[in-house]
Each structure stands twice: as C-alpha cells, then as structure tokens.
C-alpha cells in the first residue's frame, strides 16, 4: 500500500471514495445552473474516484479483511463495513467499469439541460456510491439499505425521460420486481438471523441452520438476487428498463448493478449460509442454462439495439450462474478445488461482462446520440462516419462473442474447463447433467457470435439505411476516452488472465475453502492452466502474437511478391445494376433462420401481406412467453382478489355493522 499516504486502510479509502462520490453528487445538484461545470469537472473527478476504488479493491484482495464500524444504523446494530477479497474484487469491477462510464458521461450529457443534469448527477453518484456500499456492507441492515437505495436511485435514472409512458412503464416494472426481490432477500436474512436481533454478517455466518432452513435461505436468496440479476422467469424488467435509461446508466445497470446481485448471491449463499448442498447447484445450473439460452434466443430477435443488449445481459447472467452453479455442485459434493475453478470462471465472467457490456452500451449510446436511432433497421454504414465508435464497438462485440484472444473467451473457456471436470462426481445423473449445461453454453456462445455479426454488420457496415446515418458524427473526446478505457480492459483481461485468476484464488479460498490445484498456474503469467498444464492450457498472448505475426507475414509477403494495387468500384452483386441500401439484409431477416429453427420458443404475431394488398407490409412481433405464462395470470389473480376484497366495502352500513357483529361473535366463540 505504498502508493497511498497516511497509511490508510483499504476500507478507509473505499469509504472515502464513497463519500467523495456523494459529495460530487450533491455538488452537482447545487451546480444545476452550470452544466459545463458538471460535465467537465464532476464526472471526470468521479472517474478518478472510480480509479482509486478499483485500485483499492484489487489491492485489498490479497490482504486480510479490513473492517470499519460507523456509528449509524440501528441502535444495536451500527453499520458494519468490511473489505475482503470478494468485496475487493467487486469493488474493482465497479471501479473499472465506473472509470469508463464516468469519463463517457462527461461528454455524453453535454446537451442536457441544467436542472435535469444536476439531478441526474446526484442520482448517478448516489447510484454508484450505493453499489459500493452494497459490496462493502457487513451487516444485513446496511446491505439492504444500500441495496434498495441502489434500486431507487437507478429507478430515478431510468425514468429521466419520464414524460414518455413506456419509460414510466419500464421504471414501474423495474422497481416493482426489484422491490419484491428485495423483500425476498430480506426474508433470507430473516432465516439466517438467530433471533437475537443481531444482523451483522459475522452473526449470520455463525448461525446453525437445519438443512431445510438453509435451503429456504438459499431459495429466497436465489429468487431475491435473481430478480435483480434477471434470471428466468423474473427477467422481464431488464429488456424494458435498460433501453429506457440514458446510455451511460444502462451501461452501469447492466455492467455493474446486475453484478451486485451476483455479489449478493455469492456472499449470502457461499459465505453466510455456507452449508452448501449440491442440490442447490442443480437448481442454479438448470435455471442458469435456461436463462442463457432464453436470453440469447430473444436477443437475436431484437431490432432495438439497447433491448438486444439487455437480452444479452440475461444470457450472460445465465453464463455466470452456470459457473456458480457448478461451484455449488462441486462444493456440495466435497470437491472444493473443482468448486474453486468453477467459481473463478463465474466471477471472471462477471468482470468480463461488466467491461464488455458497459462498452457496448456506451457504443449504443454514441449511436443514439449521433443518429437519434435505437432501431437497427434504420442504421447502416456507421463505421465510416464514426470510426472510433465502430472500432470500440467491434472490440466489445468480439469480446461478448467469446472470441479469442479477448476477455469473453477466457471466462467461457474456464467455465468449460470446470464443466469438463464433472467425471469427478459420484452421482451419475449429475455427471450427465453438466454436459447439457456445457452444450447450452456452447450454443449460446455461437448464437451470440451470430447476433453480434448481425448488430455490427447492420449498424456499422454496408450502406446507410436511412438519412440519419449520413449525418452521423463520431463520439466526442470524453466518450472516446471512456469507450477506449473499457476496450483496453477487454483486451487486457483477455491477455492477462493469470493475473486476475491468481487474485480470484483469494476469494475462493474464503468462499469454498480451496485454491486451484497444486499443479495449476505453474507456467507463470503467460500460461493459463487452471488444473495442470497437461490437462488444459491457454496462452492468449502467444495466441495473439502468432496470429498477428502470421497476418503481418502474409500481408508483407503478398505485397512483396505481388503488388498492392487497388481500385474502388461499385459493388458487383452478381451484376445487379439497381442496388440500393434497402436491399441489404434487415435485422429481422438476418435472424430469420433462427426464428425458423427455434419457432416453438417464441410467441409470434405475423402479418403477411396478401397479393392484393394495396399497401403490402410485412410485420412481425415477438413476445416473451413469460408474460402469458406468468405475469398476466399473476396480475389477473391479483386483480381478481382485489375485486373480491373490494366487495367487503360495498357501502351499506348495516353490512359493516354485521361484519363487526360477526367478528365479535366469532372471536368470542374462539375464546370459549
């Protein structure tokens, strides 16, 4: 910790960063009249705060946990803060993503009116500060306070443009599901507390639960945190809320806020409940697998860019949970070393997703800013008018598609490695269940690749489909800086996995009681070998170097032996002369084969034009089946119950007296 003066403990620095953020937020509210100050001063400062937090988090991972107790909170329960390896990792995640998003925000909101911006600045900083507190909290009360503050501040951020009804609807759905989830989490803490009114995590950890109660806590935690993370079937808020929010906020919500749910799940299940049972892992694995496939299949069908990215968040949460589910299964079957690998895979993907999804949302924001469009069908050819955005977006797209040597590949690779260790399990059913998850993951990865070819191809390549694209301008300096930071992280995390995996071992040591095996990571920083070098290894740096060398070599050889003469011409297109931009593939067209193959998954409403139609138009609407399966019935049941209860209040005083009378008689009977 030499780089810090005054010998502050990591937790002190983290606490100061949180305070710093809150101060920036308040300053923003006060400086509503001077938007330039907020943009040019506060947001870059906020990024600096994020950087400090990220550094603190990563530095704290290999130290012993540090604690802090604040004289706030409940009378018998002051706010406990604790920074251990797990918190450190997630703070790093928050800080790393926060740097990019804050830098980006410094430019993105330049056209926003002062009062809105001031409020937004406050909400933004309360949002990130509350996320940091969630990760630092060491008692159930502070955790819940920070958790709900996070939900509330992000709700206000989502509804920034609240004069549009669909945005209000999105905000409503979001906060409702978040709140119900929060109550479930709260009940999980209720299960864990020993009835002494002591809600510190130390006390919860010490509680001895019967397997039944432990399972109840697990289920409540899964539902509660799942609602925030967006697992099936409580994912519906995600594709509504993410598009509604301003893009930097979407980046934060998808990139970081969903991860707080992962953090909470790990904290509660692995750390607090900690009497792990493999059956829980099966539940998580099944849910995660379905979530993964569902997310990617619906993402493919979207033509609203931010909605599409939101569905990919659902998918990626599924991938993360596949890792964690495997960790549960292994840990519950007494294979802590394997559990450590699975957990590292899950956590690695958590960080990766934060980085590349943040980057992609920022890219989407730049497109939105430049063209005013979120609909892919109106884009095209943006790579020429906004080359920087296009490049950064490509990095993000390749990362999320799990292509080597970028970061998305590393975590999927680790997850596969963890899944391939299933023969170690004694239970035959489990052994054969895990490959299905791996297969689903493989399928999801390939489909993601397809989806991002669609996105990138339709948005950035080809010819502009509408006039917006012609007048598009590239992102400004701050935006480029923000996206550049995240893109660089995508590359760095892809190239130096060992650096992070070694730190993640501190987390698994605490959570599942083991590090990776003795033979793991023997090859130094260059070789990622999570079990042993003979078992599996991967070296992204060498991989990249070889590809780069081969490509350069080829390029030079071709130029040297032959020539580099080039001529620009109109596209040939098999000689068709009247080519125009509308003949390019549409987003819906691109994913049509998938829609065809996976037809049973979707609830489709198609309008096919007839031959005699004067204004032939093809329209297609794809809906989430869960609305029909789950949400509408629940809403109808609630409505029905409300109507029945409403009948109690039917206006006649005699009837009211009768209620009173009957109640009296009934209770008297009960006494007798």
């Amino acid at each position, binding site marked *: 910790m030499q780089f810090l003066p005054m010998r502050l403990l990591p937790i002190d620095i983290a606490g100061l960063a949180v305070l710093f953020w809150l101060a920036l937020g308040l300053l923003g509210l006060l400086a509503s009249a001077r938007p330039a100050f907020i943009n040019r001063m506060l947001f870059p400062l906020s990024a600096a705060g994020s950087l400090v937090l990220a550094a603190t988090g990563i530095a704290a991972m290999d130290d012993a946990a540090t604690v802090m107790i604040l004289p706030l909170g409940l009378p018998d329960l002051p706010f406990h803060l604790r920074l251990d390896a797990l918190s450190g990792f997630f703070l790093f995640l928050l800080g790393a993503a926060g740097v990019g998003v804050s830098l980006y925000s410094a430019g993105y909101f330049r056209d926003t009116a002062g009062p809105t911006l001031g409020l937004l600045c406050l909400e933004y900083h309360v949002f990130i500060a509350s996320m940091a507190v969630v990760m630092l909290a060491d008692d159930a009360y502070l955790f819940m306070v920070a958790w709900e503050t996070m939900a509330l501040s992000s709700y206000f951020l989502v509804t920034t443009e609240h004069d549009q009804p669909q945005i209000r609807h999105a905000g409503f759905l979001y906060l409702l599901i978040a709140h119900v989830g929060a109550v479930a989490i709260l009940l999980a803490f209720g299960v864990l507390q020993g009835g002494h009114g002591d809600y510190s995590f130390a006390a919860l950890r010490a509680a001895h639960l019967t397997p039944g109660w432990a399972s109840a806590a697990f289920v409540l935690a899964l539902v509660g945190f799942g609602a925030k993370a967006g697992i099936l079937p409580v994912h519906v808020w995600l594709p509504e809320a993410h598009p509604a929010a301003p893009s930097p906020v979407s980046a934060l919500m998808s990139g970081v806020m969903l991860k707080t749910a992962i953090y909470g799940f790990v904290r509660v299940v692995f750390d607090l409940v900690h009497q792990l049972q493999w059956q829980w892992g099966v539940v998580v694995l099944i849910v995660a697998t379905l979530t993964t496939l569902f997310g990617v299949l619906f993402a493919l069908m979207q033509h609203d860019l931010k909605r599409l990215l939101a569905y990919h968040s659902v998918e990626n949460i599924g991938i993360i949970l596949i890792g964690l589910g495997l960790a549960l299964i292994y840990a519950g079957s007494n294979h802590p070393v394997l559990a450590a690998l699975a957990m590292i895979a899950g956590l690695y993907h958590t960080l990766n997703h934060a980085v590349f999804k943040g980057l992609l949302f920022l890219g989407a924001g730049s497109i939105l800013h430049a063209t005013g469009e979120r609909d892919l069908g109106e884009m095209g050819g943006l790579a020429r008018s906004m080359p920087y955005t296009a490049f950064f977006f490509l990095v993000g797209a390749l990362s999320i598609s799990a292509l080597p040597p970028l970061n998305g590949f590393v975590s999927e690779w680790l997850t596969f490695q963890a899944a391939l260790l299933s023969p170690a399990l004694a239970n035959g059913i489990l052994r054969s269940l895990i490959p299905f998850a791996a*297969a689903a993951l493989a399928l999801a990865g390939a489909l993601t690749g397809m989806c991002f070819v669609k996105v990138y*191809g339709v948005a950035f390549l080809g010819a502009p489909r509408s006039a917006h694209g012609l007048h598009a301008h590239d992102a400004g300096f701050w935006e480029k800086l923000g996206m550049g930071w995240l893109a660089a992280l995508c590359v760095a995390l892809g190239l130096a996995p060992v650096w992070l995996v070694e730190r993640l071992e501190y987390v698994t040591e605490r959570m599942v009681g083991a590090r990776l095996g003795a033979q793991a990571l023997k090859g130094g920083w260059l070789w990622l070998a999570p079990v042993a070098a003979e078992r599996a290894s991967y070296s992204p740096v060498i991989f990249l170097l070889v590809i780069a060398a081969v490509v350069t070599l080829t390029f030079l050889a071709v130029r040297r032996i032959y020539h580099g003469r080039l001529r620009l011409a109109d596209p040939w297109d098999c000689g068709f002369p009247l080519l125009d931009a509308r003949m*390019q*593939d549409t987003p819906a067209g691109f994913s049509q084969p998938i829609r065809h*193959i996976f037809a049973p998954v979707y609830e489709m409403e198609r309008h096919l034009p007839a031959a005699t139609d004067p204004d032939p138009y093809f329209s297609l609407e794809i809906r989430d089946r869960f609305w029909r399966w789950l949400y509408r019935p629940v809403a109808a049941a609630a409505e029905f119950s409300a109507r029945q209860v409403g009948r109690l209040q039917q206006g006649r005083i005699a009837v009211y007296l009768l209620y009173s009378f009957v109640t009296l008689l009934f209770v008297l009977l009960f006494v007798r």
Partner: protein
Amino acid sequence: MTSGIVSQLFQSALAVLAAPLLIGWVNMCRAWLQNRSAPSLLQPYRALHKLFHKDAAISRNTSWIFRFNPYVQFGCMWLAAGIVPVLATDLPLAPAADVVALVGVFAVARVFAALAAMDTGTAFGGLGARREMFIGALAEPAMLIVFFNLSLIAQSTSLNTIVETLAHGNFLIRPSFAFAGVAFYMVALAENARVPVDNPTTHLELTMIHEAMILEYSARHLALIEWAVAVKLVAYSALGIALFVPWGIAEAGNTAALPLALLALAGKLFVGGAVLATLETVLAKLRLFRAPEFVATAFLLAMLGVLLNLVLQR
C-alpha cells in the same frame, strides 16, 4: 524442445503449402467419379497465382474490415493448422490453444468472414453472412461437444495430450467414440462448406452460402480466401485424422519418426480426399432448411456420445 520447434515449423509450412494440393486431389477424384476428365493436381496453385497477379477491385461501401478479412482468414487457418498435431505430438504452439481455443479460432474466422460479407452492403453479402452464421452457430457447439467427448476420455482438453492418449495410450475403442467420429465428420462437412450443406462449386443464389459471402472479393483478397479455405480443409482433415485415426503419429521428442509420420499422413489424406469426393458425388445437397437438421443431428450424436461416455464410465 528443438525437435518440437522443428516439427512445429515443418508442420505449419507443410499444411499451408500443401493445402491446395488436397483441394486439387479432391477435385480430381470428383471429376473422375463424375466421368469428367480431371484438371491437373496443381490447378489450384495456378488459380491462386493468377488471382494474386490481378488488380483488386473493391466496393465503395466497404470499410477496413473488408480488406482486413482475407488476412484474418488466412492467419486463423494457418494457426489452426499449426496447432493440430498431425505429425508429432510435441508441438510447442499447441499449449497456447487447446481444443476450445481451436474452435474459437474457427469462430473468429467465421465472424470476420460474415462481417466482411455484410460490409459490402449488397443483398447477397447479407444473405451469405446470415446463412454462414446460422449454420456455424449450430455446428460450433456440435464441434465443441465432440471435443468434450474426447476430452473426457483423455481427461484433458489439450490437443497434444488427447492425441497422445488416443495414439499411444492403452486405449480401448468405446461406443462414444463412434458417435463422436460420425458427428465430427458431419460437422466438418458443414464447416467446410461441402455437400450436403453447401456446394463449393455452385453460385446458385438460392443455395449458396460460403460463395455468397465472397462474391465481392477479387484478386489477391480472393486468392487468400481461397487458400484459407484450402488450409481449413487441411486443418479439419488433420484434426479428424489426429483424433480418430492417429496411428503413426510421432511421439514427443522422436524426430526420427517424423518421416514415417509424414508418409502416414499423406496416405491418410489421400484416402480422406477420395472419400470426401465420393461422398460429395453420392450425396445431394440439402435444402437450406434441412441443413440445420443435419447439423442438429451431429449435435445430438455428439451429445449422445458424451452421455454414453459418462454413463458407462463407472
């Protein structure tokens, strides 16, 4: 170690340089089977040479991706051919990328090919990209599952270790192996744009997949792509050979066994090319929407293999 580097360099160079030869051989066999007079075995080299000499013409719509793509294709395929142990199992490059990464390499190539196709802004480009991606999206997991099956047997995802185990270990034929083999072959056909999924010799717009993507390419770019296609075929063939008929491969550190291994490889490729040509002649190309069924079958077979493997393990 030195022997490793020697065999690495040798193998990589060989795979790239000899790749058009395999294409030539397959074309030759096919011509014979179809009762045509065959072109020369070296015809592909001549075609490449001709293309390299031409001036490139590029659509105005395109971005850097379009021009970059041929090099990516070529580089990826070269890397793939370089990490599959066909001659020896001590390739120093192999640990840098295991089977999963190998699939990743193919995926990178595919994604760039599709992006480049969409970059042209033409109807055919998008059509080709869409078809390529959806076939690929189904083939890729099938491929992974095949590899998983072998990994479970060898308890490793490292290609060196897998091949070593399969070739030299006291290995028993397992039922799962047969499933994996058939699945692999089906996936390989799909991935290499061969009949029954695609036909490399047709430009019929209703059915073409791979060719639709490269319609706009010309001259050296097209040459690189064609060459990369050839290398890909070699890489896949080598992979199939290494995984399913690895006998004769040189053990680690045994440089003396290399010539023998080379001979064995040539023989296997010779047979393999002939089989491929026969299959392409005998089979009819599937309707486009039958193709997913074909790949899905491969996927299921691979999955069945894995399950058999796990169930029969103890």
